[in-house]
Structures are given as structure tokens and as C-alpha cells.
């Protein structure tokens, strides 16, 4: 980068190779690792994640319990392994739902423009006025806590971002010659929108999904931490942090492990989205 733009464009192949090797590989490695942990947790955890052993309450980390035990004598390591399920479940469904609705509305809005676009954009702008977690909290307040309601709340929270990205992409691409050509060939609007324009947005959307995943993880953990998201007995890292805080000074390890898992997975998704963006747009 410091050599300037010219030399970079000369060695674009090498630059790409160099870019791939840092962010993308690190991101892939972390995310795949957690994915692997999730699959392992289906068939094997060192202990039963929900089994309480009163004689082993607050067992510090060591050989017997890798990350120690909690206030009920449950193995924290096993619970963190099980927590990957909740993290991926909530993240995947929320982001998919948010993306489907967001891309659909954003596509219509950007392609057709006019009054529909203005209404959607105004609603979008207003929704984004509700800071971060507030919208999700309002929805949870109305429907009550629980895994499914958390997913509903986080899906709705994810929609505005996808609308914005898709709309600006459509605004850009609808002026291109290939769209005009498709129209001249007599293709219908829906075919042009979803078969011709939308594939051009895939790279941007992949980055948005990866970024959104990190945000959703954070929001789920936040809701669960407040006791308003995933409810026991489903293991959730945020929920574990909530329970751990009462014993912060007597059993600090209980607060450390779930938070570290959360940080690492979010970091993984951040690396991943940066890595993909480097691939698409080597200027960064």
C-alpha cells in the first residue's frame, strides 16, 4: 500500500495473494473452528452441559474442568460448546430473514424509485433512529423473551441495513447498459431485478452478511445478558455472563470464558468480512 497505487496495480496478482493470506484465512479459520465445535457438541461434550453437581460448585479451571464450573457445578467448557448452537442458530436465521426481507424491499425501492422508494426510505430512516438494541428490546417487550422472539426481534433489526445496501446497488446498476439490453430484449422486471442485477450485488451482500452476523451475535448476547433473550435451559453465552456476574469476585473464571468465546467469534466474522472485501475491492 505504501508503494502507491501504480505499483500496486502492476502487481495486482501478488497483492491479491497477500491480501487473501491475512484477514480471510484468519477469519475462515476462526469461524470454521467454531462451526466444528458446534458439530462436535452434537455428539460429544466432556460433561453433560446441564448436569448439576453440587459437590463441584465453583471448581476453578484445571485438569478436571478445563474452564471450571459454575454456581450449580455445571462444566463451563461443555456449556460454551453447547452455546455455539444458540449463537449460530439465532445468527443464521435472523440474518437470513433480515436479508430476504431487506433485499426484496431494497430491490423494489431501488429499481422502481418513485413514491414507493420514498416511503420505504423514510420508514427505514426512522427505524434507524432507534439506537441499536432499543428496537429489539421493544419487540421483546411486546412478545416476551425466548429464543424464537429473540430471532424475530433481531431479524427485524437486521432489515434496514440490507434495504439500504440493496437499494444503493440497484440505483447504481439500473443505469447500466446490460439492464437496458435486457429490457430491450423484452425481459420482465422481476427477471431483470433478480436474475440480472441482483447477482452483481452478491459480493457486497456477502460482506454485509458477515458483518451482520457479528452484530447479531452481539445483540443476542446483549439481550440474553439482560435476561430478555434466550431463556434457560438453552445455553447462551450472554445468559452465562448474566449468571456469572453475581459471582464476579468469588468465581471470576465464570465471567471470563463465555466473554472470550463471544469476542473470538465476533473477531472471526470481522476478519472474514474484511477478507472478503479485500478480495472484491483491492483498493482497501
Amino acid at each position, binding site marked *: 500500500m505504501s508503494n502507491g497505487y501504480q505499483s500496486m496495480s502492476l502487481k495486482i496478482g501478488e497483492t491479491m495473494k497477500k491480501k487473501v493470506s491475512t484477514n480471510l484465512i484468519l477469519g475462515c479459520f476462526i469461524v470454521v473452528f467454531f462451526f466444528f465445535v458446534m458439530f462436535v457438541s452434537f455428539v460429544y461434550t466432556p460433561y453433560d452441559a446441564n448436569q448439576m453437581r453440587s459437590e463441584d460448585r465453583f471448581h476453578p479451571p484445571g485438569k478436571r474442568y478445563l474452564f471450571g464450573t459454575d454456581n450449580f457445578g455445571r462444566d463451563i467448557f461443555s456449556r460454551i460448546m453447547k452455546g455455539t448452537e444458540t449463537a449460530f442458530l439465532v445468527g443464521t436465521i435472523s440474518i437470513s430473514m433480515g436479508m430476504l426481507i431487506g433485499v426484496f424491499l431494497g430491490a423494489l425501492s431501488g429499481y422502481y424509485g418513485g413514491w414507493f422508494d420514498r416511503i420505504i426510505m423514510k420508514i427505514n430512516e*426512522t427505524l434507524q433512529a432507534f439506537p441499536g*438494541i432499543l428496537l429489539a428490546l421493544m419487540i421483546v417487550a411486546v412478545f416476551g423473551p425466548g429464543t424464537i422472539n429473540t430471532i424475530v426481534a433481531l431479524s427485524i433489526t437486521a432489515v434496514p441495513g440490507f434495504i439500504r445496501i440493496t437499494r444503493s446497488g440497484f440505483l447504481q446498476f439500473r443505469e447500466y447498459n446490460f439492464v437496458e439490453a435486457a429490457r430491450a430484449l423484452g425481459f420482465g422486471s422481476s427477471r431483470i431485478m433478480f436474475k440480472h442485477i441482483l447477482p452483481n450485488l452478491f459480493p457486497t451482500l456477502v460482506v454485509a452478511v458477515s458483518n451482520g452476523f457479528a452484530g447479531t451475535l452481539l445483540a443476542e448476547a446483549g439481550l440474553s445478558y439482560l435476561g430478555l433473550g434466550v431463556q434457560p435451559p438453552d445455553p447462551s453465552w450472554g445468559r452465562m455472563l448474566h449468571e456469572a456476574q453475581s459471582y464476579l469476585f468469588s468465581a471470576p473464571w465464570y465471567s471470563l470464558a463465555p466473554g472470550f468465546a*463471544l*469476542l473470538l467469534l465476533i473477531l472471526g466474522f470481522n476478519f472474514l468480512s474484511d477478507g472478503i472485501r479485500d478480495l472484491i475491492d483491492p483498493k482497501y
Partner: protein
Amino acid sequence: MGYLPGKILSFFFTMWLVSLITFAVFQIIPGNPALIILGAEAEPEQVVALERELGLDQPLSKRYLSWLKGLCRGDLGNSLRFSQPVKNLLVSSLKVTLPMAGMALVIVIFLGIPLGIYTGRYNQQKRGFIPATLVRLGIAMPSFWLGILLMLAFARLIKCFTPGAFVPWEENWAKALFSLFPPALAVALPRVAILARYVRTAFLEEKEADYIRTAYAKGLKNKTVLYKHLLKNILISITTIIGLILTDVLGGSIIIENVFAIPGVGRLLVSAISYRDFPLLQGIALYLAGVVVFINFIVDFLYCIIDPRIRIS
């Protein structure tokens, strides 16, 4: 229509939409809200009385209009749990939240901008490696976990801090300020990283601009170019980001106040949710969103003063 009158009109329209959305969200409560609030074993007379208090016996449009009318007079209704006007509860908790958010914003600006410039200047160099890594960690850091860690650190290392003990302003303002510092830090640090990243990107983009090459060609010193020419132009693009960050700080403080058990708006919000105190909830949501719309309006206004190009185009 000029730029500013259009903005003002759009501000009021957005405010109205915020009120509509806040009102609408709490209308989709499945089942009878009065029954949900009171619980299944409530007496029928109690339910009827609460329905009347909430205005549920009136049609939707009438309810919205009377609520909106109250809003214009600054009356947000009464909290069910605390049997007090929502406005009073909000004002007393804002005395805690706003100073904390302000403190967090100061930390964000005074750490984020220099950090961003440093990481931009030493981009992909050895000297920039540690700050860049910190920025990366900061962006991924869940602020409530950071809060827990800070609590651990402050209580273990600095013995004078007791978590969860907020000293009221009337008692001792210096102590109150001190007790707000750890939560403000927990809210601020992840946003420091976010701001630093924006500044770094802006720095790297602006560095390629023609006027920078001209400045170097004139023979100006590196420092003069960076801090007199480049920084000024970066500040323009940062102004918009500050609005976003302030929104984020407000959202983040909702959780952090619960981590540190500080009696602010976030704490009030979560207790309103757990007691299903819908009027209070509505009031808080409306207020927070209203503040964000107002901040964005101010930022637009500032932007237009700082950068005259906006007004013309």
C-alpha cells in the same frame, strides 16, 4: 425549497413517524394488554379499571390522538409500576445517563481521532501494528463484557471503587462523576475503535488527494501537511460519524447501565420491560429515538455550516 427549511420540515416529519412507530409497536401486543400487565388471576373489575386507565375502551385512532396531544404538552402519561408521571422518572434517570454518555463521547473523540491518524500514518508498518491490533480487538469487543472486566480490574487494582454504588449528584458531585467513569469507559472503548477505523480510512483516502500532493510539492513539512491540511478535511467527514457514534453510545449505555447497576435510562427501560410497564416503555423508547433524530438534525446543520458545498448541491 432551500436546504435548511427542507431539513427542518423533514425533522418534524421524522419525529412524527417516530411517534407513530413507537405507538404502533405497542399496539401489536398479542391478547389484552391489561390482562398481561395484571396477570391471569386478576379480578375482572381490576382489568376493566386498568383498561380505562390505558384508554383501551376507546378506538385506536382516538387513543393515538390523545397520546399525541399529551406528547405535545410534554405529558408522557403515568407509569403503572411507579405510579408517577413518566416524565419525572425520565428526567431523574437522564441526570445519570446524559453525563455518562457525554463523558463517553469525550473519551471517544479524544482517543479515537489521534488513534485513527496514528494507525493511518503507520498503516501496514511495524510501528502501527499494536495500535491496529487494539483497534481490531476493540471493534469486536462486546461492551458489556468489557464492563465486567473493567469492574473486575477497578475493584481489584483500585480498591476505592465499589461497583454498583452510584453516589447521587446532590451528595457529592465529584464522587458521582468518578462512579460514572468506569461505565463511561466501557461504553466508550469499543466506539473509540470504531471511530479510529473511520478516521484511518478517511486518512488513507484523503492522502491520495491532489491538494496533498500540491502541498508536498510546495515543499511543506510532513507535519504541516498532515495536521493543517489533511486533518481539516478529515474532520468534515468525521462530523457525520460523530452523530452515528452518539446514537451508538446511547444504545450501548442501555446495557452498560445494567452491568454497573447505575440508575439511568437503560436501567429504567429494562425494569419497565420486566414489569410490563407499557406507558413507561413507550415514553422511554420515544424519548431515546427522539434524541437520536434531534442529534442527526444538529449534525446535518453543523455539516452544512462546516462544508458550504453541501448547501449548494
